């Protein structure tokens, strides 16, 4: 009787543990909080009476702002990205250094939009909490790595005030469209993750 059989008969703990280590390797949880300090939940302002200075006092400066119809628009955004991965590996030749991963991702989002008139008083507001499905991803990866397999790059973009210089080095249609960039505060605002086929971005000829 070989050692494995003895172990299996004597005590099932070891082979189970051994199998678990070999097969179910590298289950991964990746999470990313973006601007969670924007405390917009349970916030309600009175239309026509609330001035933008009160809003700033209560919830701080917005994630994005822009002039809009002689007035102002504030956009507050908060995102929590969660990705769960299951990794499988096999103790055979080169395969033992690789893992086969499957990932699923979701983004929990909070958005507050406030529009002010030319005197700075609130004329429109909406708060929304929703969950966005980021889809799934599969990969054959090096065993000792933690890589995100779902594409959340559109939600993870840095603010344009930190990237305006490099925006001029983007592909030509995008660079030529930079004066209409929705992050400059001159042309309106947009939520993170908005598709490129709508609004100003449609000029960038990008899918």
């Amino acid at each position, binding site marked *: 009787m070989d050692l494995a059989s003895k*172990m299996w008969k004597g*005590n099932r703990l*070891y082979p189970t*543990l*051994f199998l*678990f*280590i070999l097969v*179910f*390797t*590298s*289950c*991964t*949880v*990746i*999470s*990313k*909080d*973006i*601007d*969670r*300090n924007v*405390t917009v939940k349970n916030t309600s302002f009175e239309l026509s009476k609330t001035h*933008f*200075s009160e809003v*700033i*006092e209560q*919830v*701080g*400066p917005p*994630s994005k*702002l*822009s*002039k809009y119809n*002689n007035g*102002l628009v504030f956009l507050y955004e908060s995102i929590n990205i969660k990705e769960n991965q299951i990794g499988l590996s096999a103790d055979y030749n080169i395969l033992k250094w690789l893992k086969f991963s499957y990932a699923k991702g979701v983004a929990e989002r909070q958005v507050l939009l406030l529009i002010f008139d*030319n005197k700075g008083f609130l004329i429109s507001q909406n708060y929304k909490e929703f969950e966005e499905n980021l889809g799934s991803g599969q990969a054959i990866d090096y065993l*000792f790595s*933690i890589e995100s397999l779902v594409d959340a790059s559109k939600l993870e973009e*840095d*603010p344009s*005030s*930190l990237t305006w210089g490099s925006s001029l080095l983007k592909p030509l249609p995008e660079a030529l469209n930079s004066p209409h960039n929705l992050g*400059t*505060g*001159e042309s309106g605002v947009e939520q993170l993750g908005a598709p490129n086929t709508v609004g100003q971005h449609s000029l960038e000829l990008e899918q």
Partner: protein
Amino acid sequence: MKKNLFLLIILTAPAFLLSSCFTISDQQGVDNLWRVDANVEGIEEGKTTQNDIIQLFGPPSQIIDMDKGAIFYYLLQDKKGSGVFLLLFNYKKERVSYDRAIFFFDNEGILTDYGFSIENVERK
């Protein structure tokens, strides 16, 4: 008994020996000088000018030209993250925080309103 213990160590050793942990830290943007009390004590709506603000906090991240004045928007981005690699289970967490200051000026460059983020970012 000793044999069992030895086997247990052999089987579980890779999970511990091949484990590692890491941290990520990165700041981008302007220095959040508005968190220094001495810098904000003298700010007064109706008196402080654009020049005063620039002298106190430096060039803003963004200047937005409004029809009735300008907005100075200061932004500091702070990324902090950590992760654990345990072979069986891996974990990575990242947090992106923003420290913001905003100043509104009229056409004559006089401060009309201002505000700071509620949660601040620790200065490095």
